[in-house]
């Protein structure tokens, strides 16, 4: 029994209070928010142009050590290239980054995909929190995966590492539901303010 009537009152008041919680963005199974963003060459990229294709969004920041580690081990570029053969579109998005850094980074790593420049609106629409943060949109324009690139924030899991994006892509390409649609992402914080 609670210690006092007052505690009971507090408990009940709290329970019946208006239940509001921050609606989370980028809900699995719901329509992925559309956007048009410029790439590092200023060319506009409109997500809806890719309707009917599987699209991977990768939140990126060239200054982030997590991103740097993945680019040194070619995690994203290998996946993007391999799955491009199967028609998967890959778009990197940098929120409030430096466009010149994006160009330099893209050249240095010979990126087979563009880095789109976002001022925070698209990150907010998807609920992107980290770099990297991965989202996969299915052929119907619905969000099919949101979360980390893998389960290995420290980069030390070796053979125990699970690449969630690869698994999700394999599921989608074989027409089965994504077995792990949502995971916790890790990385540096997305820069919502300059």
């Amino acid at each position: 029994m609670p210690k006092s009537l007052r505690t009971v009152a507090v408990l009940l008041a709290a329970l019946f209070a208006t239940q509001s919680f921050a609606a989370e963005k980028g809900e699995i199974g719901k329509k992925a928010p559309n956007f048009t963003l410029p790439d590092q060459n200023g060319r506009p990229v409109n997500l809806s142009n890719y309707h009917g294709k599987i699209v991977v969004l990768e939140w990126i920041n060239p200054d982030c050590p997590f991103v740097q580690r993945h680019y040194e081990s070619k995690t994203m570029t290998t996946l993007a290239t391999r799955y491009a053969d199967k028609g998967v579109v890959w778009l990197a998005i940098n929120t409030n980054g430096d466009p010149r850094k994006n160009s330099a980074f893209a050249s240095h790593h010979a990126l087979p995909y563009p880095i789109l420049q976002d001022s925070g609106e698209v990150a907010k629409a998807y609920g992107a929190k980290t770099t990297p943060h991965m989202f996969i949109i299915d052929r119907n324009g619905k969000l099919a995966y949101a979360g980390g690139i893998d389960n290995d924030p420290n980069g030390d899991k070796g053979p125990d590492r699970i690449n969630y994006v690869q698994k999700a892509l394999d599921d989608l390409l074989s027409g089965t539901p994504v077995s792990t649609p949502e995971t916790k992402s890790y990385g540096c914080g997305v820069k919502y303010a300059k």
Partner: protein
Amino acid sequence: MKPSVPILAVVTALAAASAPAQPTKELVKAELLADVSSIKPGDSFSVGVLLRIEKGWHVYWENPGDSGLATSVKFTAPPGFEVGPLQYPVPVRFDQPGSIVGYGYLDRVLLTARVTPPPTLQTTGSIPLSANVHWLCCEKVCVPGSAKLSLSLPIGDAASANKELFDEWRPRVPVDAAAAGVTINSLGSADAAGNVDSRIVIVTWPEEVKDVQWFPAASDVLSISAVEITPIDDGKVARITFSTRVLDGQKLTQDKLPSVAAYTDKQGIRRGVKVDVPLKGKAVRFSP
């Protein structure tokens, strides 16, 4: 390693448009210390890694929050010595733009562990202790760092050392609710999967407290949001409310979510109490 005098160094401007914005000065200075100047067989003592962090930067708690990386310390002692678990003092909470929540430390932190020597020591020489530390230090950018630290202590009467430092940080290590005279009541509804709209934890202290903060443990399967803390009436009670959601496709395997309620006591000392939040079942209520 002896504490070093702070060095005034010229700092490369982080906002420079040129190549990598990596600062040139040491962001984190790390030292391994003990609260004794010698080791007495059978007498437990504490070791600690003191991290001194560049102003404006932070390192992370055991649960870094939405981004970042937990600070890790692995202490090593010779065979026969028992090394207890790493003790994280109560952190602070950073709220970054975009509702990105972080938990960690500014300025300084002492990360400790208890060490128990065996009842007899064969050697007469010094005892080597070491610590392997990894951190991620962030401000506008994040810079990983690490240190391999060592400390050698003679065998002796275990006289006190670094007393002020260890006394300052010891109270900040969270304790069990019973040890703090704290009672916890929890109320909330959850479906079988552990999805919950709103969870309420009422913490009652034996005396008035201030600046209550709540820090959940890390979870791979739960998303926690909308944390609100409301002090009640006479300052002995705090109502902590938050929402939990199981990530799509994930399964809740744990019955409880460990967490820490941090507070400042009547003497102005920052402390913490462990709070295990039940995750399953309806309207669960408990007090230890």
